[in-house]
């Protein structure tokens, strides 16, 4: 998994590439939680280059979302392909996450 990170205004944009599954969900979790501990509250996950997510990946995202929202922060998702959109829809995770077609629209949502 290729993980990129940049900051845009107050929003941490993390790019995920490849698969988010049993092999690397801990890496993503560690990144998110380290940044939360540093005081970061607003995250956007750029998933344009992500082609697979398993339940361990979904768990990491949900756990992070729950923590952030409890502290008036948020985690939004952007750029999901059709397959990932289906996963989020079928699993019902789409009810809890704000999902945007592009990173730009996701960034705007924080204003």
């Amino acid at each position: 998994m290729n993980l990129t990170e940049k900051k845009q205004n107050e929003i941490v944009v993390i790019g995920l590439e490849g698969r988010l599954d049993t092999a690397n969900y801990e890496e993503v979790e560690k990144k998110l939680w380290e940044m939360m501990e540093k005081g970061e509250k607003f995250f956007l996950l750029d998933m344009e280059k992500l082609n697979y997510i398993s339940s361990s990946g979904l768990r990491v995202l949900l756990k992070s979302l729950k923590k952030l929202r409890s502290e008036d922060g948020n985690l939004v998702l952007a750029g999901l392909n059709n397959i990932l959109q289906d996963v989020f829809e079928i699993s019902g995770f789409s009810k809890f996450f704000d999902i945007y077609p592009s990173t730009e629209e996701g960034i705007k949502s924080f204003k």
Partner: protein
Amino acid sequence: MEENYITIPEEVFLLSIDEAGEQLDIKEFDIVLASSILMELALQNCIDTDLDYIIPDKKKSTGNYVLDDISMDIHDVGEKQTITSWILKIYSNIHEIKKQITKSLVRKKIIKIENERVLLIFSSKRYPIIRKKEVIEVRLRLRELIFGQEIPDFRDIVIISLIHYASLEFLLFTEKEAEEYKTRIEEIAKMDLIGQAITSTLKEVTLAMRAKEMFGFRSPQQKLDDMVKGYMKKHQLKKENQLPDWLKKGTVQYRKTLEFIEKSGTAEIEYDPESNTYSLQHKTAGSD
């Protein structure tokens, strides 16, 4: 795993026991129990799942015999297999698994066995306080979750999923509440991908059972039930409490009769109470 940690399969098993210690007659309960084992393994990061498959994750001991045994099987296979196929594999050994779960709950002093009835040691509520760290009962917590808008924890998702897909909402909600919060229950239940597989697995098992019935196959319990009916007719007994222990439900000896039928594959058996042994009936030439 903490010594007193109650696993999801153990919680599910406890759900199936009423306050009198009798196991509730919950349809397809064994499939739900099999599914709950996979759910616990997923929570423990021993397996991963996606919409269709179980994928081996970390090979580690959970400290629980049932979970470790099944985890080892999944890791021995090595590659991903469908959720339904693993539920069915676990289900095929569910009788032994239930024995192990019962032993574990006895060790943890949650239940005791008395005259073949399982008695909850803490039986004042149908859903006992299980985890030391929880301030409120699991039942109240789950109700609050459903009535509110909170993002659920994964353990709660798993339990709600099991309850929903096994149609056990009555254990937590009134009929009115279940109807009013139906959407919320469904939304949370579907978040567990193993739970979603329960419905399709139940259909497979039901079809297989119907096929077995059509072709004349009967389960050991069905064979024993038929044998008891035949015995009562032959000896002109009017009530089941007139039956000898080895044919009387609720006794230790009845359990042993069922086990013998399972092992031998036939209900054409005899029991000698003096030697406490079972044997196959001998038929001589020309007999019925």
